[in-house]
């Protein structure tokens, strides 16, 4: 089975991570920020799995599992909060929630 060099896999995860980061920084809609966060999480998981396959050890995949659970929990809580925020502040704009100023 032809193999893929580890650096390429890591490169892919880095790219996805960067895309996710750009999304978090740019989007003002809370949901899409959460979305981009998901991309970043997934990229991290990809890196783990790539490393796991490189060392032929199941640890990478187990780590992905844990990332998966956290991602799931994070989304559920995140969305609940977004709903509550939308209910309170009548807007999904992330900048509106700027009361914690220095």
């Amino acid at each position, binding site marked *: 089975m032809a193999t893929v060099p580890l650096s390429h896999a890591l490169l892919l995860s880095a790219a996805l991570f960067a895309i996710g980061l750009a999304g978090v920084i740019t989007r003002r809609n809370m949901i899409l*920020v959460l979305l981009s966060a998901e991309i970043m999480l997934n990229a991290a998981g990809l890196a783990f799995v790539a490393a796991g396959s490189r060392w032929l050890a199941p640890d990478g995949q187990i780590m992905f599992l844990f990332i998966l659970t956290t991602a799931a929990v994070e989304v559920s809580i995140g969305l609940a909060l977004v709903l509550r925020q939308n209910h309170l502040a009548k807007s999904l704009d992330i900048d509106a929630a*700027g009361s914690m100023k220095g």
Partner: protein
Amino acid sequence: MLNCLWIVIALPLAGFALLALAGSRMPGRLCALVGAGTVGISAALALAMGVSFAVSPPEGRQFTQTLWSWMSVPPFSPEVSLRLDPLSLVSVCVILVVAFLIMLYSSEFMSGDEGYSRFFSYMDLFVAAMLVLVLANDLVFLYLGWEGVGLCSFLLIGFWYKVPKNVVAARKAFLVTRVGDAALLAGIFLVVNKLGTLSIPEVLSRAAVSWPANSGAANAAAALFAVGAAAKSAQIPLHVWLPDAMAGPSPVSALIHAATMVTAGVYLVARLHPLFTLSPQVLFGVAIVGAVTLLAAGLAALAQRDIKRILAYSTMSQIGYMFLALGVGAFSAAEFHFVVHAFFKSLLFLGAGAVIRGLNQEHDIFKMGGLRRAMPGTFWTFAIGVCSLCALPLVTAGFYSKDLILSSALAAHQGGIWLWLAGVIGAFITTLYAFRMLFAVFFGEVRTQVSKGSGRNMTLALVVLSLFSVIAGFCQMPSGLGGVSLFADFLAPTLPQVREGVGRLQGSLSLVAAIVPLVGIMVAWTMYLHRPRFLQGYARLPALAAVHGFAKQGFGFDALYDYCFVKPVVYLSRVNRRDVSIAYVGAISRVAEALHYLLSMTQTGRVRWYAAGVGIGAVVLIGIGVLL
């Protein structure tokens, strides 16, 4: 008998303590009694000791009494020790007698003044300090008396403290004399440093041994002591405080600024004369200062209108004579003139006080006049004082002491003739301003009425003083007139004999010196009494008016010192009130605040900005990782 020497000082000190602590509760008469009494008793004691000293002098004609050792740090261990020798004995007696008479006078003069007990306590403190100065056998103990005297002059000049002018004058007096004291202190340090001892006879003997004539150390020490003496005796460079010191009551001016304190400088130079003979240059400098002062002060006195300021400048010029005598090496002549001057100058001041009191605080002589009939007692005693001041030949004591000075100035080996000439011109000017004052005050028509005559005590004091200022001269007669030299012989061991010039030139010149006062009286009479209009004509000339104004301010010394010392210091302290040297403390706190503001700017509150911050942080860290 002699070892109760310390009681002479202790009595006035006790008087001071008693009056200071319980003065306000004592009735007026008791205050005067305590004040004058203590001084009287110590005067009597001093005279008794004087007699026993003259009758059976202790060995070496000097007696020292050490009370206790003041500080005991090995090389520098001053003792509180007193020394009685002819010089200090004469000075003590004169001081105590004059002080007692002035106290007697002021018991009536100051009656009714609300600070009555305070006045007598300060006077007692002054007498004690002056006695310490005169009797001190230890340089630092002398310095204690020296400063104590300065302190009392400060307290007494500012006695009527309600008037701001007096307060400023008091501070000015203490400050200027303190400059001299600093020089004196430096001199003492030099002496201790080089000779290792503080007791005066020890210092003089070691100086004679280890310091060659005209050596650097001798010159420096003598110069420093001379500056100290000049400041205390109000000689030219440091004289600005004396005319203002007239702000004090008249008895104070009589005692402190005529008879005793201002002559402390003369006493110091006389006491340390072996040190001064070691440096002829400084001695000659002293003579020059004396000559310059007597001329300048005389001229300034001519231009004054205030009776007490005339007498102040006159005191300055008479002390100029004493410095002249010291400068030419005639130390006993200076001491003799000090004695005579103490009598007639305190007489003049007390007379002036009586006049001022009589014309309820009128100081300007041209507003007085014709007091001859109104206050006969004061007039006659004042006239005797004036004659003694101008050294009326043969009759007054002033003649003998001034003649002694002039003849010894003539005999001086360095610039004698010029000094003599200055002295004679000075005598002429003295006669001018003295009789100008006499005519203005006592002759001519009455301008202000006399409201208060002088009482019994006051006239008694005036009469006794006038008596002294006449007979005091006969104990030291020049060789031409009977050659009695009782005074000089008495002082012989401690002060060198007076070298009288002999020969025809001497005789003729001293004759000239005797005639000058008479000529002076004639000139004064014509100018001020006979044809005053003659003088007014000249007075309007702009040049003469300018000179007159300039002389009136005491030749601009006041303005000079004020400009180059007082103004910058006051300006500097006012500008620097906020203490610029610790501004850096404020600067540190301001920098901290600025940094704080910068950091708080980053907390914008927008989530995306924080995410970007995290991103930037990651990039930076990885960048560092990558680069290193």
